[in-house]
């Protein structure tokens, strides 16, 4: 009898609520280990943590198929993907994975700056604490590169209206709320599961 190989998903915590909802609804049967999304602020740390998680997964079971629910978020993501039995969700970043490629490209061309639910609550920590953007510099910086902010509402947490309003005023950009389906994320995860299997 051929035994099916064990699977594991290593996911950015930015997808935690969404993946847990897909698991709870029975649409996704995949064990998931979440890594802190704030690791993105220092890509080298994210890379080291991902490497550690991949090594640990393989140490426990060398045959295990690993899906990474990530965009192209650190310098050697392609190296991780090239390991046998490993695949990554398709998309440059979490916003493209959630939106799907076509919608992402269209909105990005229009100058949209996306806020995922988890990051919307941490906007001040990111823009001020990590990026050092203060006062008029923050507005100039954002207005020079973006036309508006779009909050990607996956419908799993209440829309943080107060935080979004604060971010909008601080960064000098209007904000709009875009309801999004979990279908592109689910499709991307399923595709990655198949790719990891073929990649053996």
């Amino acid at each position, binding site marked *: 009898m051929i035994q099916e190989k064990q699977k594991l998903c290593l996911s950015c915590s930015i997808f935690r609520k969404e993946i847990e909802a897909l698991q709870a609804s029975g649409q996704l049967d995949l064990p998931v280990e979440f890594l802190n999304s704030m690791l993105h602020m220092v*890509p080298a740390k994210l890379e080291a943590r991902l490497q550690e998680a991949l090594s640990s997964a393989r140490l426990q079971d060398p045959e295990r198929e690993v899906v990474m629910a990530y965009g*192209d978020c650190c*310098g*050697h993501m*392609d190296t991780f993907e090239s390991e046998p039995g490993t695949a990554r969700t398709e998309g*440059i970043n979490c916003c493209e994975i959630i939106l799907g490629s076509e919608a992402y490209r269209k909105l990005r061309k229009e100058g949209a700056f996306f806020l995922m639910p988890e990051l919307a609550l941490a906007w001040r920590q990111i823009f001020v604490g990590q*990026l*050092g953007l203060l006062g008029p*510099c923050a507005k100039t910086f954002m207005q*020079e590169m973006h036309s508006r902010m779009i909050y990607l509402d996956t419908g799993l947490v209440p829309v943080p209206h107060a935080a979004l309003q604060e971010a909008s005023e601080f960064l000098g950009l209007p904000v709009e709320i875009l309801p999004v389906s979990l279908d592109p994320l689910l499709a991307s995860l399923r595709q990655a599961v198949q790719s990891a299997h073929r990649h053996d």
Partner: protein
Amino acid sequence: MDRNYSQDLLIAIERADRAGANAVIQAWAAGRDFRQVVPELLAPVLETFGKVWATGHGGVSLATGYVASKIAEDVLTRLLQEAKDSGSVLPVKGPVVLGNVEDDFHPLGRKMVAAFLRADGWDVRDLGVDVSAAEFVDTAEASGAKVIGASAMMYTTAKNVAKIRQEIDRRGLTGKLQLAVGGAVFKLRPELVADFGGDGTAASAVEASTLFETLRQRALTLDSPAGGLHP
């Protein structure tokens, strides 16, 4: 005691204090020829800042890099205005083409490079984000630029640098049109510069002008009748 303008300007940049930096420049310019602000004050300070930045942003936030580029823009704006008022013309080093490669939508690094290049006298043709290989090379041919600067943040999009390389080679412009590349992934993985067909990169946006000058000279040498056989 004489004021140390260079130190004051560097401190203002490191604090991401654009207004403070411009105040230092204003104070320096009192009683001086403003046209000397780039060689005598801004360039040396940016060189120092660039060295700190190139070592991995030790204490240098994204905001400070951005503010440094805005200060360069502010200086250029004033230089252009003074030149216009006096009916003079600023020296121009030559045209260069900049853009984010196809599928890349991260303009910050490119905009900073453009600001530093313009402040240093380059005629920058900035094509924006998501630029096709053909657009890069068409613009270079039409403007007579000897250097293209292509920016990509991630490996996925950096692969599209290879398309520009192919387009340059396909049109028989190998060597005569140089390809500078930049962006986070090239800093993390310098081997990708050659892998994707780039002719060079700089450790930071501040150092882009030096790189572009080196590449321009190389292109001119290779494009000369002697074909670079003589010094």
